[in-house]
C-alpha cells in the first residue's frame, strides 16, 4: 500500500488526472453557483425584470429563467458524469494498473 501510494504520487498520469478533474469539477461548480446566485440576486434586486411578461402573454421572464436553473443543474451533472465515468475513469484505471 505504501509503495503503491508512492508510485501513484510519482506517476505523471496521476498529476494529469488530478489537474484535469479538479479544474473540470471546480469550473462546473462555479457555473452552477453563478447561475443559482445570479437567480437569487435577480429575485432580491431584479424583481422588475423577472416580473416582466414575455411578449404579449402573461408568462414572465422569471418562469423560463427559473426552469432554466433547474434544467441546468441536471445538464451540468450529466456533463460531469459523462466525462468522469469515461475519460477520467480510464485514466484512473491505468494509474491503478501501473501502481501494482
Amino acid at each position, binding site marked *: 500500500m505504501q509503495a503503491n501510494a508512492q508510485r501513484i504520487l510519482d506517476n505523471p498520469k496521476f498529476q494529469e*488526472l488530478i489537474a484535469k478533474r479538479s479544474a473540470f*469539477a471546480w469550473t462546473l461548480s462555479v457555473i452552477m453557483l453563478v447561475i443559482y446566485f445570479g437567480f437569487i440576486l435577480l429575485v432580491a434586486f431584479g424583481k422588475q425584470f423577472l416580473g416582466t411578461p414575455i411578449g404579449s402573454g402573461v408568462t414572465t421572464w422569471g418562469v423560463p429563467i*427559473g426552469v432554466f436553473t433547474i434544467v441546468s*443543474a441536471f445538464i451540468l451533472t450529466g456533463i460531469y458524469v459523462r466525462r468522469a465515468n469515461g475519460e477520467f475513469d480510464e485514466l484512473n484505471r491505468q494509474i491503478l494498473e501501473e501502481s501494482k
Partner: protein
Amino acid sequence: MRSIFTRFGAAAAAAGALLPTAALAAAVEGAVTKQSTNYEAIVMFAIFVLATLGITYWAARRTKSAKDFYAAGGGITGFQNGLAIAGDYMSAASFLGIAGLVYANGFDGLIYSVGWLVGWPIILFLIAERLRNLGKYTFADVASYRFQQTPIRTLAACGSLATVTFYLIAQMVGAGKLIQLLFGMDYLYAVIIVGVLMIAYVTFGGMLATTWVQIIKAVLLLSGASFMAIMILAKFGFSPEALFKRATEVHANGLKIMQPGALVTDPISAISLGMALMFGTAGLPHILMRFFTVADAKEARKSVFYATGFIGYFYLLTFTIGFGAIVLLLSPDASGAFPFLDAAKVAAAGGKVTPAMITGGTNMAAIHTANAVGGSLFYGFISAVAFATILAVVAGLTLAGASAVSHDLYASVFAKGRASERDEIRVSKITTVIIGIVSIFLGIAFENQNVAFMVGLAFAIAASANFPILLMSMFWKRMTTRGAVMGGWLGLISAIVLLVLGPTVWKSVLGNPAPIIPYDNPGLFSITLAFVGIWLFSITDNSQAAKDEQRAFDAQYIRSQTGLGAEGASAH
C-alpha cells in the same frame, strides 16, 4: 372547524414573514380536525404497507453482515440509488408544501424549488466520489479518516443526531396531522403507526429494506405527480401560457402571481437561505449515507445524476400542479359553487374567492387537485402516497441516527474499534427501537406546537457543522483534529443559538415582541463561523499530532482520488 381554517389562513398570510423555514416545514402545521374516514386512501395505504413489509421480510433474510445492514451490501446500482435518494429527499413538505406555496403565491414557489435542487450538482462535483472512496457506513468515517477518532466521531454523531431528531419531529407531527386530514384517523394512531413501521423496516430490513421503501415511494410519487401535471396541462392544450393566463384570471392577486413577491426581500436573507439549502443538503447524514450503498465512485456519480434528474423533474411537476390548483380550485363548477373552498368563507366574501379559503389549508392544494383531476379513487391514491412519502423519509432518518450511535459512538468512541460486528448491529437495532419509541413520544409531545422551524434547524445544523468538517477534511491538508472540533462545534452551536434568537423561534414560537436577530436563516453566519473556526484553530495547532495528521493527508488524498483501497461491494 372554524379555528383550523383561520389558523391555516393565518399561516398562509404569515408565510412571507416565516419563510424560509415555512417552506422547509412539515406538510401540515397548526391544529387540525379529523375528517370523515377515507376508505380508498386507507385501503391503498394498507396495500403499500403490506408490500413494504413483504420487502422487509425479503431484505431481512439477506441482511447478515454490518455492511448489509448499513449499506445494503454495497450492491445497489446507480439508477436504483438515484431513485432512492430522490425518495429520501422528496418529503411530504416539498410535495404538499411547495405545491401549496405555488397555489398561494404563484411564482415564488419556484424560488424554493430551485434552492432545494442546486445542492445536488455541488455534491456531485466536489463530494460524491471522495465520499464513496473514503467512507464505509457513515459520513463520520470520512470526516475522521486521518484524525483522532473520539472527538471527531463524537462531534459528527452529535451533528447527525441533532439533524435527525429535528427532522424526525417535524415528520412525525406532519404525519399525524396529515393522517387526520386525509384518512380521518386519530393523531395518536397515526404517530404510532409511523413509529412502529419505521422500527420494523429498519431493525429487520436495514438499509436494503429502507432503500426499496424509498424507491417504491419515489416511483409512486413521481407517477402520481406526472399524471396530475399531464391532466392539468391537457386541459390547456399543453400550453403553459394558457394555464398561466387562466390562473391569473381566477387568482385574487391576478398578474402578481407571475412575479417574484415578498418571499425573499433582502439580499442577506436570500444568500443565507441559498447557502443553507445548498450546503445543508450536502450535510444531511441520511443522504450522505446513501453513497455507501453503491459499488464504487462510478455508480456514486450516476446516483447523483439520476437523483438530480428525478428531483428537478419533480419540482417542475409541483410548479405545474400548483398552478393547476389555482385554476381548478378557484374556478366555480357548473352550478357556480366552489367544492374545494370553505363555503361559509366564500359566502362571507360575497363570492370573491382567495386561495386562503381552501378547505384544510393551503398545504391541501395538491390533494384537492388530485380529487379534481382524477376523482375520489385518485384522491385516495395521492393521500396514500403522501403518507408513504413520510414513511420513506423517516426510515432513512432512523437508520442514519442508529448508525451514528452504533457505528460512531458505540463501535469507535466507546469500544475503541474493538466491538464485534454482531455487537455493533445489535446496538444499531436497539437504537432503532429507542429512536422509534422516542419519536412517537416526541410526536405526541409536539402535537400542538409549531414545528415548522425544525426542518430549517436541521438544514442549518447540517450546513454549519456536518458539511464544513466533511468538506475540509477532504480538501484541506492542514486541517487538524483541534481545528475540526472547534470549527464544528462553533457551527453547530451558533446555528442553534442564532435560529432561536431569530424571528421564527424568538418571535413566532416563543411569543416575544421582537427578535434579537433580524434574520430568519442563520446559514451565512454560522457556516462562515464554522469555516473560520476550522481554519484558525488548525493553523495555530503546532502539536505533534497535528503534524502527523497533515502527513497522513497524502495517503487519504490518493485513496479519495483513485479509490485505491476503497470499500467494495460484498460478495452476494
